[in-house]
């Protein structure tokens, strides 16, 4: 026989195709077959239609297009004989789906077949209908199917039931018609019909509330009896699977109970007994039994509360968790996530097992377990849980580390009970998996560090130690570099040691080593290197002995191809070499970063549960706060303040030159308000640096002095105030940035005794709320300089806080201000604030003093600003 004639038997064609060695050969054979089939179709040859369609189906399964065969299916279905119909329906289901319009043509044939008496043909039609009918067909043929639900043959009934499921899915409105017949099916004895009937009822209840009500009222007791009989039934060989009679029917019944009991207390009550029986009596050594138990647990967890049942359910899940079968553990973890919403206490008991699952070799189990652990964390168990997770982080696989890190960071942030623990955990996480830690996380860490001044020393030492061992973790290096830059002197000086610490010996050179390694490492990226440069600049001020070396390192980056690094290197180099005097001012301690503002800025921020150990968060004058992230990545961190020390330089900053936003917040126990924000942009006037930043932070904890910056109203003459008396290096007074010639620092000389002519004191300023008096004295031998003692008195009944006095003088005068005695002015003259000013008059004798002043304070929670000009200086000053 010619193997390629249309008379080829199916078997031979399959053999021929399988014998092909290459794809090209196979294509050739298939093409030939298709051609002959097409020829047969056009000849309308009835004899081999059956065989041809079978061949076509095979070709379709291989993946070739076979649209030309669709009409053949229709013709075959229309044939009277059973074999033709059979293959026709088969072809129909394989080659067509509900979206094709050709399907509509079959509707009539199906209708006729549904009305036949031959149950096999009816079965074929129902099968096709149930698998691929479209909505229109469903609507058309629904009455037939409804009738068939009561057909005499059980095979037809069960197919009709499943067909109905599809119909009501496609056309939910028709559901009402099927409620009664569906309920009737529940009384069937034949397992197959019962099974399909139960499934039908489950579907109907999902689609129609009327059906739900009806079934709840009428059928629950019947169903309970059915399940009970099933559970207690003796061995039935036909339906037995692993010793259980028809587990599928068990499971379907339980699913129906799920739907019926959900949200209805009465129904839940009725079924609770049988649920308890199933939960306790079912064998668990085989998959079939476990499947039933699983469904039972799912049902218990979704019906109305019955305390005992829920506990039972969670216990079953706990048992599942310790099973050796991965499948069982997986489904248990899944269900536990649902259970935790209902009864978190019960799930907590299984915490240890769940933790074990986090370490499972199977990735899906690990993922599920990790999510579950995350839901389980609360304040009381956060420490041991985190410890476990961090320990596991060490050994976990790379693709899991990302998830695990994110979850650990999230847990630590939300629940950490104290800062030191938070910092510890974060250092550990960074050491293990720093490269997976997201930017927001390490930014948040730095914020927390700045908010914990008593931990600065501890933190920087811990980070130093960590970076010795885990220098490959870029994020760790960044945080460490930042901290070393900030708190370098604490690292070397071992200051702020906590009880749990041991002394470590770190020299300045060691610290600089760390940064040098980081900057040289070729895998460090731009952010890291930029941070290194800033840290180096800070260290050049904190470690004066290393300045040369630091300068060399910075110089190396001068030639960097990256603009950012090049720019920084050149600028910092310039500062080190030529602007010594202001350097320490520039690189002072960062102010405490405001957590609340920062976390508010973060998208989807985790609430900053870690509270600051200090008092209230700093007030932000004029609302200019740099978010921490910007602070870290932007250019020069211009701090004007130490954390604690409210001593401030002038708030004048190098604005455009270095393009920096302010970080003006200063944190003092008395909430000094910084007028520093009053920067006149064009005036590149610089604030005097307060104490050398290398002095230990504890020294900075000086009295709560308020320093003001003079607002340079007029060019060039801002007189910043010197800090508390212990500062031995007063900063330069005013200078322009480019002409940083620096005036000779005016030593803070204690107020001279009044030698020389005395001058009458004046009332410099008086308003309804405030009075300022000036008392004058001159230093002996220095007629040009006048020492003014200003006294501020509060005339109103409110207490003034954050009291800041600023003054400005014309060019021929030079003004220098000491810190005020305080910044809280009691009401109604019950006390006063004094402040010393020193004015040098270069035109002494020719022009007299004149001064403008600005006073700001807070009264009744409102900021008040007063301004004035003093014209009534005595002559001859």
């Amino acid at each position, binding site marked *: 026989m010619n193997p390629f004639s249309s008379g080829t038997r199916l078997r031979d064609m399959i053999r021929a195709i399988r014998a092909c060695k290459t794809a090209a050969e196979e294509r050739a054979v298939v093409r030939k077959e298709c051609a002959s089939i097409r020829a047969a179709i056009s000849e309308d040859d009835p004899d081999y239609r059956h065989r041809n369609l079978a061949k076509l189906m095979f070709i379709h399964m291989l993946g070739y297009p076979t649209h030309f065969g669709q009409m053949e299916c229709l013709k075959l279905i229309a044939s009277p004989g059973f074999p033709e119909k059979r293959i026709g329906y088969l072809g129909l289901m394989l080659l067509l789906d*509900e979206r094709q319009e050709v399907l509509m043509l079959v509707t009539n044939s199906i209708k006729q077949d549904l009305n036949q008496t031959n149950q*096999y043909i009816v079965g074929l039609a129902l099968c096709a209908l149930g698998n691929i009918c479209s909505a229109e067909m469903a609507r058309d043929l629904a009455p037939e199917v409804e009738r068939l639900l009561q057909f005499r043959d059980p095979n037809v009934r069960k197919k009709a039931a*499943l067909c109905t499921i599809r119909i009501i899915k496609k056309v939910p409105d028709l559901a009402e018609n099927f409620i009664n017949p569906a309920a009737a099916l529940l009384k069937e004895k034949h397992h197959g019909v019962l099974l399909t009937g139960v*499934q039908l009822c489950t579907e109907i209840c999902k689609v129609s509330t009327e059906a739900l009500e009806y079934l709840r009222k009428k059928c629950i007791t019947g169903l309970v009896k059915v399940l009970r009989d099933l559970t207690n039934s003796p061995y039935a060989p036909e339906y037995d*699977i692993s010793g259980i009679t028809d587990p599928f029917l068990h499971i379907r019944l339980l699913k129906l109970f799920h739907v019926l009991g959900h949200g209805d207390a009465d129904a839940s009550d009725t079924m609770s007994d049988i649920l308890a029986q199933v939960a306790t009596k079912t064998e668990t050594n085989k998959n079939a039994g476990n499947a039933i138990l699983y469904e039972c647990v799912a049902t218990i967890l979704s019906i109305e509360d019955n305390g005992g049942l829920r506990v039972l359910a969670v216990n079953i899940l706990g048992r599942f968790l310790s099973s050796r079968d991965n499948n069982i553990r*997986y489904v248990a973890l899944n269900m536990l996530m649902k259970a935790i919403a209902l009864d978190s206490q019960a799930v907590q008991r299984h915490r240890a097992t769940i933790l074990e699952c986090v370490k499972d070799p199977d990735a899906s189990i690990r993922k599920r377990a990790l999510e579950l652990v995350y839901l389980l964390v609360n304040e009381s168990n956060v420490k041991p849980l985190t410890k476990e997770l961090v320990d596991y982080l060490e050994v976990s696989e790379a693709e899991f580390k990302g998830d695990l890190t994110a979850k650990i960071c999230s847990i630590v942030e939300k629940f950490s009970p104290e800062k030191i623990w938070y910092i510890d955990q974060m250092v550990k996480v960074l050491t293990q998996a720093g490269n997976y830690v997201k930017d927001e996380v390490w930014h948040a860490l730095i914020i927390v560090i700045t908010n914990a001044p008593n931990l600065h020393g501890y933190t920087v030492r811990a980070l130093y130690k960590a970076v010795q061992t885990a220098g490959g973790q870029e994020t760790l290096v960044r945080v460490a570099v930042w901290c070393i830059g900030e708190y370098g002197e604490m690292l070397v000086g071992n200051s702020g040691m906590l009880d749990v610490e041991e002394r470590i010996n770190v020299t300045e050179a060691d610290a600089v080593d760390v940064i040098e390694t980081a900057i040289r490492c070729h895998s460090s990226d731009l952010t890291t290197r930029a941070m290194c440069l800033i840290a180096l600049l800070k260290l050049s001020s904190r470690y004066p002995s290393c300045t040369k070396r630091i300068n060399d390192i910075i110089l190396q980056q001068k030639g960097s191809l990256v603009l950012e690094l090049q720019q920084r290197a050149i600028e910092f180099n310039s500062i080190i070499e030529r602007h010594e005097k202001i350097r320490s001012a520039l690189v002072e301690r960062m102010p405490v970063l405001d957590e609340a503002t920062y976390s508010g800025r973060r998208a989807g921020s985790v609430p900053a549960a870690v509270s600051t150990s200090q008092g209230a968060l700093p007030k932000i004058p004029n609302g200019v706060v740099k978010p921490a992230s910007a602070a870290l990545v932007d250019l020069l961190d211009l701090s004007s303040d130490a954390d604690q020390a409210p001593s401030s330089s002038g708030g004048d900053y190098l604005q455009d030159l270095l393009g920096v936003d302010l970080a003006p917040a200063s944190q003092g126990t008395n909430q000094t308000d910084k007028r520093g924000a009053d920067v006149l942009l064009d005036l590149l006037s610089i604030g005097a640096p307060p104490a050398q930043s290398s002095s230990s932070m504890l020294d900075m904890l000086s009295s709560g002095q308020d320093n003001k910056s003079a607002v340079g109203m007029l060019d060039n003459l801002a007189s910043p105030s010197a800090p508390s008396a212990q500062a031995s290096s007063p900063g330069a007074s005013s200078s322009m940035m480019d002409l940083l010639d620096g005036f000779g620092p005016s030593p803070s000389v204690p107020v001279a005794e009044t030698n020389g002519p005395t001058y009458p004191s004046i009332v410099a300023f008086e308003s309804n709320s405030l009075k300022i008096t000036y008392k004058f004295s001159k230093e002996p031998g220095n007629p040009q300089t006048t020492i003014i003692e200003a006294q501020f008195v509060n005339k109103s009944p409110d207490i003034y806080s954050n009291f800041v006095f600023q003054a400005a003088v014309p060019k021929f005068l030079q003004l220098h201000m000491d810190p005020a005695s305080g910044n809280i002015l009691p009401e109604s003259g019950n006390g006063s604030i004094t402040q010393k000013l020193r004015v040098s008059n270069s035109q002494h004798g020719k022009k007299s003093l004149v001064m403008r002043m600005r006073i700001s304070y807070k009264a009744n929670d409102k900021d008040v600003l007063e301004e004035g000009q003093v014209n009534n200086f005595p002559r001859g000053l």
Partner: protein
Amino acid sequence: MIRFIILQNRQGKTRLAKYYIPLEESEKHKVEYEVHRLVVNRDPKFTNFVEFRNHKVIYRRYAGLFFSLCVDITDNELAYLESIHLFVEILDHFFSNVCELDLVFNFHKVYLILDEFILAGELQETSKKAIIERMGELEKQE
């Protein structure tokens, strides 16, 4: 409900594919390819359940064939694992120690068996004996 059933060998050739949801031909091929990739590389110690798009695939390997079932997220995985096993037992009984070649040469019969076992994405009959008997009756009609 069951969304589709796929039988594939280790090389990825589909021996049986039945869809209970409408899909374009190209989409079907894509699905088969993806499912194959998903299941063929999984370690036998791992679970038999994999997430696939918005659903789940429950699979089991019998000799050189992978039986994959795609079900809704809310379905009971363990139950469908049992149903896969039941189906294999039926095939085994019908073809007397079934092997892959049997399924290749008698694919239309496999579809018929499947249609007696599952309809509209739900289980139709759970008795192996009943299904085999029915197949016998149907053969007699030919």
